[in-house]
């Protein structure tokens, strides 16, 4: 059974646009425009898209914060908005951009309050907290008021807060936004460990593709409110023709142009040290012929083969459709 299922999910917002000095016209904008998803228990799904694509809006409909304009949605078998109270016990939510902790109280007190709000038996609470304390190294700031925590410390607190009631699904909306390298690493390691155990389904939105590469086998890319890709990272590369690159440093220019099938010269850069040629190789083409061709020229000094970067693929994906999303449209 799917733990998350949506069919033709839509969310429209009415925005009023200034059309004259005093005149305003109202228009309807679909932030989420017919999203159908099926996520199984234990999956780790990365939800990607440019700003304003509808990522957060989808997440808010899945968690019962926003009422869908149309379409169907079931999370843990519940309808999120009408059954919000029941659903809330089964899910954990982390918002990267806002805190769910008690601002003026020590972190420890927030955890204690959550125990009462979710009615977690003390022993279970202790066990989960102990685990988080060890893995996220919370002990040094457990007695500090939340307002005095650094962003990295706070985010570790938020993660713990979202997990203390043992949720079946953890939703994370840009959990690594604004974090330094070390904190990002800590958060990712923790999520990888959590997801690896297989009993918690994780859905995260992010702009940091390293999060996705480290954590998610499945990615859903959304643009202008519609799903444009749903599958593995490899499938994404294959579909959008990711290209490997061969970067060759030569002592002297080649005598003739390279003319091999599937190989294209991308750039040629001359410096005092060497001539650097960058080739792109089509997905199915072998780099063999190019490498041996370059080696045979006798002028090759150095050679690097670069694997396709997910950034490039995503950038290409975002640019592929023309219309620019409205600024006023909530993400």
């Amino acid at each position, binding site marked *: 059974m799917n733990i998350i299922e949506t069919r033709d999910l839509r969310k429209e917002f009415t925005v009023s646009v200034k059309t004259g000095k005093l005149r305003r016209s109202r228009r309807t904008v679909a932030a989420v425009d017919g999203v159908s998803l099926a996520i199984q228990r234990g999956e780790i799904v990365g939800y990607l898209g440019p700003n304003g694509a509808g990522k957060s809006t989808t997440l808010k409909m899945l968690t019962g914060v926003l009422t869908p304009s149309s379409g169907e949605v079931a999370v843990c078998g519940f309808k999120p908005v009408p059954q919000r109270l029941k659903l809330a016990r089964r899910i954990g*939510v982390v918002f990267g951009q806002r805190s*769910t902790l008690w601002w003026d109280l020590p972190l420890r*007190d927030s955890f204690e309050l959550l125990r009462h709000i979710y009615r977690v038996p003390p022993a279970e609470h202790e066990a989960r907290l102990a685990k988080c304390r060890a893995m996220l190294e919370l002990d040094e700031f457990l007695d500090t008021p939340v307002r005095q925590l650094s962003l990295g410390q706070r985010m570790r607190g938020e993660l713990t807060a979202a997990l203390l009631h043992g949720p079946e699904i953890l939703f994370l909306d840009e959990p690594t936004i604004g974090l330094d390298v070390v904190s990002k690493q800590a958060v990712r390691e923790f999520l990888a460990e959590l997801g690896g155990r297989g009993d918690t389904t994780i859905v995260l939105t992010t702009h940091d593709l390293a999060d996705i590469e480290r954590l998610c086998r499945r990615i859903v890319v959304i643009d202008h409110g519609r799903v444009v890709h749903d599958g593995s990272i490899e499938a994404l590369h294959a579909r959008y023709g990711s290209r490997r690159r061969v970067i060759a440093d030569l002592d002297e220019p080649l005598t003739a142009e390279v003319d091999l099938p599937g190989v294209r010269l991308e750039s040629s850069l001359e410096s005092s040290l060497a001539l650097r040629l960058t080739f792109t190789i089509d997905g199915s083409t072998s780099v063999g012929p190019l490498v041996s061709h370059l080696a045979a020229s006798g002028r090759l000094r150095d050679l690097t083969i670069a694997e396709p970067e997910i950034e490039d693929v995503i950038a290409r994906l975002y640019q592929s459709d023309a219309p620019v999303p409205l600024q006023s449209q909530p993400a």
Partner: protein
Amino acid sequence: MGETLGAYVKLIGAQGRGQASYRVSFWLDLTGTTILVGADLIAILVIFSRVPLLAGFSLKETIVLFGLAATGFSLADLLVGNIEKIRAYVRLGTLDTVMIRPLSVLGQLLVLDVGFRRVGRVVYGATLLGVALWAAEVHWTPAKLAMLVVAPLAGAAFFCGFFIATSTVAFWWIESGEVANSFTYGGRDFTSYPITIYGGWFRKIFAFALGFAFVAYYPGLFLLGKADPLGAPAWLGWLSPLVSAAVLGLSALIWRFGVRHYRSTGS
């Protein structure tokens, strides 16, 4: 149910501890609000220094009405005054963090920042009411004693409903603050005086259509044993809990509808 209540009690306690970390601000607020409420009373005293009767009501009788309104309003303000914060929550999108918890949104908002500092106003209103009733030499009967308990509570419920209903407008219209205040604070000022001083359509709308006459005016007449200059029967004061219940119920429906229209913010 009991356990849910326990969670709220913990939340209120947490809020108290949070506020305690800003101790000076707490005491400044407490004294500040008490002085401000005192200013309203001075306005009444100034009026009566020029005239012996105001639309058929003496100073003592007017202060009984004023005390009833002040007690009901300040009790409501203490309990649900926080709901005003909904505007900030909607504008900043922080309501998201409230909605992911397994507790009622309204309940959480109310305990998010309980205004312990507003306790002073309740004490002030109740004291004023007591003094005015004593000065007016009311002949106490069991029915009047019962009314003395019922009226401030019904008044509080009435204003609670108004606070909730008018704040809900924030879900559609974020800059709704002044409009909401004109109904809540305007309504309090309306009820602080005998409705006989207002005329025509204004009285009809505020006193009867919106129901403000049932907060202080009719219960006050009953307590004072005074016949209504407008000719309404004395038992009308007993309708005040019913009117309050209707307002409270209606406000709950409006609130429910409002939450469904929450738009959140980008990201």
